[in-house]
């Protein structure tokens, strides 16, 4: 296969057989309860140096309580899949958790800027869909995937993409390496204790990340009975055998919204966006992350029941989000 052009960016090397072996050796096929607390899940399944993907954003159905716990545990040297993300990239960089980033889109500010300038952070350029395509290839068990975008961009030069002569059509065709992240954090509306999970509504690459990642931590608004899953199997987004840990996290996406459950805490969102744009993350982290012991502690200390009820009431739309 003739290579016509190739990017010079470092990339996580695809290893489909290695991934299959990981699945064989580490993913339980038995229906084993995996319910655990956020502390245990992050401690057990996120290691320094891991490649981390998380689904959706700090604003919208993201695994925000897990992200905050990861920061509290001061994980380091992570390689971040910064596709379709807003402030989380800056939060993790400010907290010293990240050393590399594959970028699709993030809310840029001085924190990431100075980390790059000072050589603490390396950035590789992609786009949102290029990254979700890479994860899709990882979830398919194949080494690379061809796509019809990304060619001709300057991002290409700073990526792991190549343009090849397609052996079937003879046309120049772009390929990107499959991505099998070490760990995925995904927030879902409902899951059973085994990890059978339902996501209602749109998202980036929830299904793909769950199948492509070596370790998968779900946080769920509700833990439901397996009988309920079996009653409507078409609604299962993620099967149990892909999942390593299930964390019950009501309001787990705050300050973001979860479709059908609660609206965003807009004042809190403005606080984190301003912290990102101004490059002053410490007060934010102190108040919302380090200053509390856990997600529940954050809800108790910084939110209170009345506020939580108000956010629930703000979610007026339920069509499509309740079975």
């Amino acid at each position, binding site marked *: 296969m003739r290579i016509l052009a190739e990017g010079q960016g470092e990339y996580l090397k695809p290893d489909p057989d290695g991934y299959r072996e990981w699945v064989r050796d580490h993913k339980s096929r038995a229906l084993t309860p995996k319910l655990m607390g956020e502390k245990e899940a992050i401690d057990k399944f996120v290691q320094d140096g891991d490649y981390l993907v998380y689904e959706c954003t700090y604003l919208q159905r993201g695994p925000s309580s897990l992200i905050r716990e990861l920061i509290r545990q001061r994980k380091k040297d992570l390689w971040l899949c910064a596709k379709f993300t807003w402030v989380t990239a800056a939060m993790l960089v400010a907290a010293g958790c990240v050393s590399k980033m594959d970028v699709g889109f993030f809310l840029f500010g001085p924190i990431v800027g100075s980390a790059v300038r000072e050589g603490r952070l390396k950035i590789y350029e992609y786009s*949102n*869909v290029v990254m979700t395509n890479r994860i899709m290839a990882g979830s398919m068990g194949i080494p690379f995937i061809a796509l*019809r975008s990304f060619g001709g961009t300057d991002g290409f030069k700073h990526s792991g993409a190549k343009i090849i002569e397609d052996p079937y059509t003879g046309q120049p065709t*772009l390929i990107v390496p499959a991505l099998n992240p070490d760990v995925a954090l995904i927030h879902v509306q409902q899951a059973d204790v085994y990890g059978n999970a339902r996501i209602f*509504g749109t998202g980036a690459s929830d299904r793909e990340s769950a199948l492509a990642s070596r370790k998968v931590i779900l946080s769920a608004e509700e833990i439901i009975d397996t009988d309920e899953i079996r009653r409507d199997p078409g609604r299962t987004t993620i099967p149990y055998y892909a999942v390593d840990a299930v964390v019950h996290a009501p309001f787990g996406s705050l300050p973001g919204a979860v479709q059908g459950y609660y609206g965003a805490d807009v004042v809190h969102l403005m606080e984190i966006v301003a912290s990102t744009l101004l490059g002053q993350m410490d007060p934010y982290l102190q108040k919302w992350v380090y200053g509390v012991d856990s997600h529940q502690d954050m809800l108790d200390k910084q939110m209170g029941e009345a506020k939580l009820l108000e956010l629930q009431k703000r979610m007026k739309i339920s069509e499509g989000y309740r079975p």
Partner: protein
Amino acid sequence: MTKATHFNEREQQICLVARMIEDGRTYWVGGAGSPLASILLAKKRYAPTATYVTEDGVIAPEPALPFDPLMSMVSAEAGYRALQWVSMNLVGFHAQTGFMDYGIINALQVDSYGNINSTAIGDYEGEHRRFGGPGGGDSIAALCWRTIVMTDQQKRKFVPRVDFISSPGFLDGSPSAREAAGLPRDTGPWRVVTPWAVFDYDDNRHLRLTGVSPFVTVEQVLAEMDFEPAMADKIETLDTPSDEDLVLLRSELDVRGQITDVSRWIELRDGRFVFAEQG
């Protein structure tokens, strides 16, 4: 329909794009802001059967407006009464297989061949100012049949060559540059719309000025470009918003003024549209 006598630049730009929207066509709308406001205004006023999809996979919604700040994706309001909910990969595949007629995206910087920069201003390898990256813009510009780009009429935004190609236009302008880079045949930039002007592309894939807003002259537009565009044989005077357009924009689409707040105002004075005196 009554012509408005007082509107701002962003409202003018959104109305220009809204009037380009065609019934029965599909649009892939990048992010939120002006592109989303344009298609929503069009659907309510000009092209009710136009359809749009979003990057997170909402297909043809009837959204519950207005949205909370920043909640234009993966939100119940934005996805309300859609025909389907899919994912980023699937909506990308819809475009990759040719289902998306048009893309609408914002750009930080655009060049004479319609290439778009949303990554870095300056020398990427050296001193530069960084921005958020292409997001979904790269896929929209690569995969939709035609792409509408929205940006401001400023010299630093219209450059001969963008500092960084985040999303592809006609690349180096050579006839089959996009195909050689692996992009689908017959796709590419179609219009650039600013509050002051509308551009298309000539046969050499070079940006061409086709119309200017009535509150600026051709010379003013050219003075806010760092290169000379091709010129259409006749430069059209562009239409302005109606009162009906503005009522919708202000009461439903941009209630908090997040999209339209930061731009200059235009008023009708002695029968001519002019920039309002700065208060």
